[in-house]
């Protein structure tokens, strides 16, 4: 019988929540009290909302504890380890009994994330123990040809998980068919969408699955060199990748005649991105790897024809690569059993925004958005009304509540005007102003435009100015038409995806929330009460106690009233800063 294991989740999210201290505490207790258990590390299992997470596996089974701060750690060690009494009220998941969060994990199908939260990402042995590098060995051992590998990937129906949704097998085939003796493989880990952290979690939690995927890809297309282009803002991911690459090299998974395949030489390195969002675009990414300013260029030629250093190059994103070993090992059919007719397998989403259980989930394609938000995500906090969900980050669009039964599938999502994207899912409730949301995303893309194309550089700036003006109550008749017209032109006249999709949040919000725009423009009102310039602050005479706090805090002295008298706001002078509202202890400030 094996030793009791205590595993602490040490992904970025866990560390941010204090898992480092938790780990230290446990370790301290272990040595000071000479406790006999194995203390291990793992990464994020996806329940970011419950971090720090500590899993205890003893002979009875597995118990995942949530929100384990130092105090709780002492409690768990004391009760569970020393006294063998699991602290049931702190368990968020267990295979022994029902927990409130059971649904969160049970609804998921983990393929890309199969090892995240289950292994120590810094240990190649643990990866190998869970069938890691088996696919590669299988290819070598059984002499599976390049064409066969490509065929399997093609048959699995796997499509690019970076957002483009291009069939991965087809992309590989183009690169494979190019006779060039020199080819490259790139892993795009330049995750940049606000609210997205799929790649980070995957790289932190299971770097080897990505590396193995790349090695298989390299074999399939005939590449000799690989690059992982990772954001410099992901230091933990980079560190773990470095460790993993070294380990893989040591074990001969990288290098010469890999897996016993004669003539298959392949190695890879990490290139840290400088933080430009546009470098997620493949031609800009290639320019950046080459040491140039990350600026996209016109395609064709596609990278499969002329990519890094002018050589045929295959680029896939982190999640796509992580799926590869599983597909090779389990076969195309096993993968294709999940999903819809045209979108096979699973998809990882990062749930963020106004949602109870924010975190990382992997679901089979075909699940409805409503299920993701309500079954997995647990719905909206404080029982507010669900309004919309932003899919695909700044390149995507808003799907309104009434379309929440849309299934997750490339074509169904595209039909709404949003895009699948790389998996960012930002949930909004009734307190979100959709004009403000559009403005937020456009502000992002506008700032992240590389500045090359006229329409993207100046056009998005002009759109932003119009949106800002609308949220400031300066909207004019014709603004919506101007926005739509500019949007269409920007989409038509930009070299890369950034510009071509930048207007999407604006277009979808106009499409689904036109009345909200019109309220801003015509009635000078913000229905969600977010746009400050459009709010009117008044004092409820019923509630005002005349405490004078609001008057004292008002930066423009526009609130008058004697002590213990009902106060009054001078609407002419009010600058709508909201200071009074946040200061009033009697809820006497009304916002309209």
């Amino acid at each position: 019988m094996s030793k009791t294991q205590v595993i602490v989740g040490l992904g970025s999210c866990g560390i941010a929540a204090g898992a480092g201290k938790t780990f230290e505490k446990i370790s301290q207790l272990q040595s000071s009290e000479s406790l006999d258990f194995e203390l291990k590390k793992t990464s994020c299992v996806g329940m970011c909302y419950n971090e720090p997470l500590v899993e205890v596996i003893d002979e009875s089974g597995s118990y995942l504890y949530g929100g384990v701060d130092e105090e709780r750690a002492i409690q768990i060690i004391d009760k569970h380890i020393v006294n063998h009494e699991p602290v049931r009220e702190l368990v968020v998941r267990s295979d022994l009994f029902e927990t409130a969060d059971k649904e969160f994990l049970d609804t998921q199908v983990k393929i890309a994330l199969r090892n995240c939260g289950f292994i120590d990402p810094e240990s190649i042995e643990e990866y190998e123990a869970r069938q890691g590098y088996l696919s590669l060995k299988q290819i070598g051992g059984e002499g599976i040809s390049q064409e066969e590998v490509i065929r399997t990937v093609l048959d699995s129906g796997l499509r690019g998980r970076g957002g483009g949704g291009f069939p991965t097998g087809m992309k590989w085939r183009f690169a494979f068919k190019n006779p060039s003796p020199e080819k490259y493989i790139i892993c795009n880990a330049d995750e940049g969408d606000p609210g997205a952290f799929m790649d980070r979690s995957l790289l932190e939690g299971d770097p080897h699955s990505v590396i193995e995927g790349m090695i298989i890809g390299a074999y399939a297309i005939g590449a000799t060199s690989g690059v992982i282009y990772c954001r410099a803002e992901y230091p933990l991911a980079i560190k773990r990748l470095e460790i993993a690459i070294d380990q893989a090299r040591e074990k001969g998974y990288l290098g010469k005649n890999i897996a016993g395949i004669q003539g298959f030489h392949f190695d890879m390195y990490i290139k840290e991105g400088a933080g430009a969002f546009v470098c997620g675009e493949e031609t800009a990414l290639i320019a950046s790897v080459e040491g140039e300013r990350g600026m996209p260029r016109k395609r064709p030629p596609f990278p499969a024809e002329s990519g890094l250093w002018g050589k045929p190059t295959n680029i896939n994103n982190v999640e796509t690569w992580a799926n590869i070993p599983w597909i090779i090992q389990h076969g195309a059919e096993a993968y294709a059993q999940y999903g819809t007719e045209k979108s096979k397998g699973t998809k990882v989403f990062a749930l963020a925004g106004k949602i109870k259980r924010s975190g990382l989930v992997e679901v089979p394609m075909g699940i409805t958005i409503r299920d993701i938000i309500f079954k997995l995500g647990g719905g909206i906090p404080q029982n507010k009304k669900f309004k919309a969900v932003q899919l695909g980050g700044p390149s995507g669009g808003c799907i309104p509540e009434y379309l929440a039964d849309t299934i997750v599938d490339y074509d169904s999502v595209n039909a709404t005007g949003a895009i699948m994207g790389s998996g960012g899912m930002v949930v909004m409730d009734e307190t979100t102003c959709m004009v403000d949301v559009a403005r937020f995303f456009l502000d992002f893309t506008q700032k992240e435009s590389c500045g090359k194309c006229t329409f993207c550089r100046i056009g998005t700036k002009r759109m932003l100015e119009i949106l800002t003006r609308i949220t400031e109550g300066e909207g004019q008749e014709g603004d919506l038409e101007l926005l739509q017209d500019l949007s269409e032109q920007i989409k038509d006249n930009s070299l890369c995806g950034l510009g071509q999709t930048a207007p999407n949040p604006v277009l979808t919000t106009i499409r689904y929330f036109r009345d909200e725009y019109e309220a801003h423009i015509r009635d000078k009102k913000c229905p969600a009460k977010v746009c400050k310039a459009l709010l009117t602050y008044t004092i409820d005479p019923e509630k005002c106690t005349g405490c004078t706090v609001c008057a004292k805090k008002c930066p423009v002295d526009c609130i008058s009233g004697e002590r213990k008298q009902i106060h009054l706001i001078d609407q002419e002078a009010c600058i709508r800063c909201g200071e009074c509202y946040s200061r009033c202890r009697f809820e006497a400030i009304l916002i309209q």
Partner: protein
Amino acid sequence: MTEQLNIILNGKAIKGKAGESILELSRRFNVDIPTLCYDPRLDPYSSCFVCVVEVEGMRGLQPACSTRLAEGMKIWTENERVRKSRKSAIDLMVSNHYADCVAPCQQSCPAGVDVQGYISLIEKGMYKEAVEVIKETNPLPAVCGRVCVRPCELACRRKLLDEGAPVGIDYLKRFAADMDLASGDPYMPRMEAPTGKKVAIIGAGPGGLSAAFFLQKKGHQADIYEAAPAAGGWLRYGIPEYRLPNDVLQQEVDAITRMGANIYYNKKLGENLHYADLRKEYDALVLAIGSQKGTLLGAEGEEAEGVYSGIDFLKEMEVSGERKDFRGKKVAVVGGGNTAMDCCRTSVRCGADKVYVIYRRTEKEMPANPIEIHESKLEGIEYLFLTNPKKVNADENGRVKSVTCLKMELGAPDASGRRRPVPMEGSDFDIEVDIILAAIGQKTVADFLEDVNGSGVEGELKVNRWGDLDADSKTLQTGVASIFAAGDGVTGPATLIEAIGQAKLASHSCHLYLSGMEVKPPKAPFIISRDRFKEQKPDAYQGQFVPQEREEMPTLPAGERMNFKEVELGYAGEEVAKHETHRCLECGCSEYFECDLKRVAEAYEAEQTRYGGEFKEYQVDFRHPYIEIDNNKCILCGRCIRICKEVVGANALGFINRGFETYVAPAMGESLRDTHCESCGMCISTCPTAAITENFLFKPGPVKTDKDKTICHYCSVGCELELNHKNGFVMRVKGSNGLINKNTNICRYGKFGYQPYNQKDRITQPLLRDGDKWKEISFEEAFGIIADKVKAVKADENAFFAGARLTNEEQYMVQKLARAGARTNNAGSFHYLGRGEGYSQSSQQNVPLEALGKADQIWIMGTRIQDEHAVVGFEIQNARVKRGTRLGVISTEGITGLEHKSEDIVRINDYYHFLKAVNHYILSNGLENRMWLDSNEAGFEAYRDQLLEEDFDDHFERAGSCCVDHLLGFARDISKAESAVLVFSEKELTANAVIELHNLAMITGRLGKTANGIFALKEKNNSHGLHDMGLDPLLLPAGLSFREHKGFVAKTWGIDALPEKSSNLLSGLNDGIFRNIFIFGEDPVGCAIHKDEVQAWLEKADFLMVQDIFHNETTALADLILPASFGAEVEGSFTNAQRVIQQFSPALPPKIIFDGVAQLAGILKALGVNGITSPEEAREEIFRLLPQQGTAKASLKPTPGDDGTRLFDYGCDDLTRRFEMAFREAFA
């Protein structure tokens, strides 16, 4: 054979080439697609999105520049969607283009006079050209320069500085016009061919005169009918002489009649002139009748005697020619305009005791010129502001005795923006006066309507409700299609400059009418204005410009004004005017005539404010002495960045920031000076706007220039240049599509080395030494002196030197002067003096410039290629970028300047021994190319045997510090490379080193193969010509062997025999053998490495003649100086280092009567040798001498050891020396 693709372009089936872009295809088929970010020298980039087209089946629109053709593509280059998109792209760009296309002065001028343009010409002393610019839009500059109300000066941005004093625009205009009139040859516009159409103009005031001017220019016959006995209208009859002398006015009238316009006086329409008659004779009519009738006060009692309309008062004096006698009288002038000023100041001059000006507002609101008010005060005028006459009081005789006035106060602003005066109740007071002059307005009298309309004409001539002629405000066409109207008669009383502007418009419409075209307003040019972005305020200008006080107008002292002499005296001289021009801030864009953005904006009717919003403001960067960066005008096409990277290789520029904040800036450090910038100006050449321009040393205008082509006179590459000049003053230089520089590339010499053309200290006449001074003598006298000197000594005591800057024709003539004239073979050049014979074959079998782009390896020997022969460097860098060509540098310099753009640098001490060692290694290891050697019979065995006898180690040691691996690596690379070119600089390699380099090329089999062989870099544009033209005691022209061909040459020249003896010129100089030295176009003293030595040679001679463009250290020693011409001023040819002969015509007007060939012909004639008189004849004679057989086969030549050293820098040329000094100084 390129693959052909079937393409449908705008519905037409055509063939495209595989790999071609839509833009390239369209250009091939003459389908115009606008673009801003494309430059054929660079890889397509696609950022501007102006070149978009629609391609069937492709999402969105496609940038034509980077979309490659595919089989079956259907392309539409011009449809509504495409046009809309292009316009939007341009609208977006101009919404963030914080700049002024034209200056506010020009924009505010009703006639649109190009102020900035003429100020720039005045700066250069080009007054006639300035008047030419003014007369584009204003035919009366001398008049306007005196009496214009100057809206330009109100708009002048200099007002934001120097305590609000604008540039003296009008003073400058007057100065230029007066200078032109005084020149004896005043400007006469070029007129179009006569059209046979005739136009009658009614009225010879400013409107009528201007209309006549503009119509004559268009080729129409303009006849003016004037009711008065003289021309000028109110200019003559309203403005007193002390402001506008009649003779000045008359000179400008005469300038118009000289153009062919007629003026018939004392003809008044409707009285003694009838429209019915005019109609028969003329095709159109322009009514420029003015506002003739003065109005009175509109106050009670104004019928009293002594109350006059001011304008009638002035006119009567002019007509009668008699001065009124106001002595002992008090005069009140009512009004605040310029007529009031003329009345009050005239009254003073008529002797009035007291003159009042009564004006109902304050001085601030007065429409009169402030200077007039100022002068009137000096002359003793008393002002009664906020005062209005209410009633004129007459005495018993009905004569004025006093006027009752009311005090006023200012109320709310009225329609004119001025505060309306309101009477103060009970403020009445009386002033005693004898005379009242009402200067408060005029009225149009159109009393000929019946005469016109009753003539049976179609349509109707009408007046509007103010009594002015009714005409379409946009075309000035009246109700009768053939009748146009302009000036005060249409607008009511206005200004001179408005009348001129109106006449221009009416003439334009009239011209369209006469040409049978639709009469429509001229298309307004697209103009971006900073004022439309935001109000311009002083703080943005202060500190950016040097403060400089305005040059005020000198005037007659107040005490000397009791007469009608002109009060304003004009600027005192050219220096004053020039100084004032420096105050011009040059608000308008220097690239106005060149800007691609403006061109497309105009074509697509772009709007600056359609996408108005935030715009970026940047400080202009002037820190680089030659290159100016103005990010305000940048459209981020990246062309500058790309050309600097892909072609120049300096990588000096880059993008900073992202999104809307993106801008272009020097890649490293703050200033371009801190980068690898080579100051080549290639960024300027590619900028489609004016974001990167030349940092001009003078005011560039901009003005319209002539564009003439010439061949660069600096290095030996032979680039064609386009000189943009105004009557010989070169404003800028651009690369042209030359025979050599096919892609328009030029370097800093060509681009910035044009200053000498504009220098004023040229030698233009022969100068004979007269003690310490120079005496100008005639050319004939000079030729005679030279001939006498030549004849006075023994033939071989004469020596002749020709410079490598001279044309082939000039060089040939110098040589002929020596051999046929002076009968000596002492003909040579300082350029090659003492440097052996090895260079004569430098140019043979050289690879063409474009072949560099096809080479696998290029090796440079002698390293300053990026400075001295940059265009070759561009070709090499581009090959590195496009083809991956490997560049190796072999250099004796520690820092080559090529570190950042080469693959390999081999540092050595000595080229000759390095090459010997390499050749030795190749031969001793059997690495030579036998195949080539066997088929070329190049004397291989002899060469090998001799070389292998020499000691490799010795050569290796003397070659210098490079390690053996480097040397051997080079030897192996050069033997094995598929294609390799050896580029070398004669300046740094000795003649024998060059021979060994040739030997290397031969033993490795590189000669005669594409993208293989030698590329020579010579110091001067026509260095090679010296060899070909026989400037060598041992060589005859065309490389003829002396021994074999001396008879043939003598016969061709028509002389008995050629001189036999050939001596060494260097020893001749050392030994002081030459009693006469004649130097044509070289500056051996100024360019000498050891000056004293060279100076001593020349001092040994009894007589030194030097021909050059400017005075220099060599001319300083001369006894006789001849003036020289620039290559760009003459006809002739240069032979470049590739031995390409390029013939050219004069690009600039000559500044010297006798050019080089003519001078030499003159000297030869004086020596009794007749014949050649022109470059063309010289060329013909050279061709007659050309050998019949082809060039001798290349053969290996052993060299005994290294030879002569270089004695001169700068190719021994004063011009090159000057540019290099100026360049160094600029960066110091």
